[in-house]
């Protein structure tokens, strides 16, 4: 199978320091690739590089990001804009900041549809309704403002927005880190079902190996800008080769854990 998204030997520096250091990874159609790492590992920057949304202080030294056979860095600004949101949807950690506080969430989802000229104005309402149903939100929620929603509902609305243009790739950057555990589980289950139903390719950024276990097919473990281990979920989780990967997996307490001290 041909990968839908390839990152080739990407090197990015900020103020002379390599924040992404020779990163290569592939995302296959209908598969979930997880990038796991702690803060400062470069996992979020790697995700942003896919959309060429790196902060201005960052410099791409070498490498390429190939989506659909084309190098994203070499595209014109309008071509990039077409990819963002249309071909590749993105969901960030904090659902509140991703939504405009003075706009009804339904209108915000509709705005994405209109911006990409996907549908006519009169078809808007049913389409928004359909999107909300897809993320298991009551269509009435469309008339609410972000502050009237709980964290979990907001994140669902953001996912609906990301899904609005029926993208082929979804990038999720720690989408559940700001949520309570019980809500986290619901949102992850939702992501999983949408992925299967739409045969989506997902790039999932997280620090939590238990989420990797739930969702991912392939895993990249990042540390200080470098991919230290890459492989299938089973290989990386059950028989990690890298010391850092082992430490990350072992240092999480588990239910029924009989250990008196954690490694680390």
């Amino acid at each position, binding site marked *: 199978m041909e990968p839908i998204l390839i990152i080739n030997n990407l090197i990015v520096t900020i103020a002379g320091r390599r924040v992404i250091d020779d990163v290569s990874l592939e995302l296959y159609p209908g598969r979930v690739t997880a990038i796991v790492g702690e803060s400062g590992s470069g996992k979020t920057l790697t995700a942003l590089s896919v959309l060429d949304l790196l902060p201005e202080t960052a410099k791409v030294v070498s490498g390429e990001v190939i989506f659909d056979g084309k190098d994203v860095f070499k595209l014109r600004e309008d071509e990039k804009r077409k990819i963002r949101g249309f071909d590749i949807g993105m969901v960030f950690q904090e659902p509140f900041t991703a939504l405009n506080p003075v706009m009804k969430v339904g209108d915000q989802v509709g705005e994405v549809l209109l911006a990409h000229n996907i549908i006519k104005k009169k078809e808007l309402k049913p389409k928004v309704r359909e999107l909300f149903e897809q993320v298991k939100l009551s269509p009435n929620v469309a008339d609410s403002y972000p502050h009237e929603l709980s964290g979990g509902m907001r994140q669902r609305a953001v996912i609906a927005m990301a899904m609005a243009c029926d993208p082929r790739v979804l990038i999720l950057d720690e989408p559940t880190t700001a949520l*309570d*555990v019980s809500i986290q*589980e619901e949102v992850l289950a939702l992501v999983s079902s949408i992925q299967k139903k739409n045969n989506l390719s997902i790039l999932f950024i997280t620090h939590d190996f*238990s989420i990797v276990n739930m969702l991912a097919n392939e895993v990249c473990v990042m540390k200080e800008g470098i991919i230290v281990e890459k492989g299938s979920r089973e290989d990386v989780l059950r028989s990690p080769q890298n010391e850092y990967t082992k430490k990350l997996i072992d*240092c999480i307490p*588990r239910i*029924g854990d009989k250990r*008196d001290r954690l490694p680390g």
Partner: protein
Amino acid sequence: MIKFENVKKYFYKKDRFLSQGKNVVKAVDGVTFSVDKGTTFGLVGESGSGKSTIAKIAVGILSLDSGVIEMKGDCDIVFQDPYSSLNPRMTVNEIVSEALYIRGRKKDLIDKRVDNVLGMVRLERAAKDKYPHQFSGGERQRVAIARALVTEPAVLVLDEPVSSLDVSIQAGVLNLLKDLQEELSLTYLFISHDLRVVEFMSDMVGVMRSGQLVEVASREEIYSSPKDDYTRHLLASIPKL
């Protein structure tokens, strides 16, 4: 060591102009529990459950509306975010020694004690003259723990002490807290949203929801045979590794 009896704390929202509706938030609504000396009571709950309000009441940052709190010995607190819990304009030495300094202890005794607690939390002596921003998150949390220990309190309230730390750092801080408890026979009130961390740390566990304790039991009972539906729901939500 610690005893909470039917403790209540309500917050009253100011009436908004031309708006009606709820304006009482029952943050803590009749909470009763006790903690034995040298043990850890884990308080677990989701956001808005009132667990942090209990931490603030325990150390007197918030007053209580009704009920009784008994505490034997001094009590200090470690907060969640070591970036906001340390004064950015004070050196580690100033931060850790302040509680002794304001009590008028002699300088050489203060110096000795500060060296002592910094050793306990495994920080180098050279740390004394540095400022908080020169440390990593884990090291900052160690400074916060050293500050809390400097007056030799019997009880420590730990309000999500590892929630803002990376997992690999989290393990080190949890281990350290366990070591300190054994060395100093400290009593912990350990507050967290993470059931896995609470299980690792606690002897007794209380599950909070909307200001009330829905279940209090030993760690084994909570995690192997939970009685309350909400406890079960929470346990089922934990992603498995």
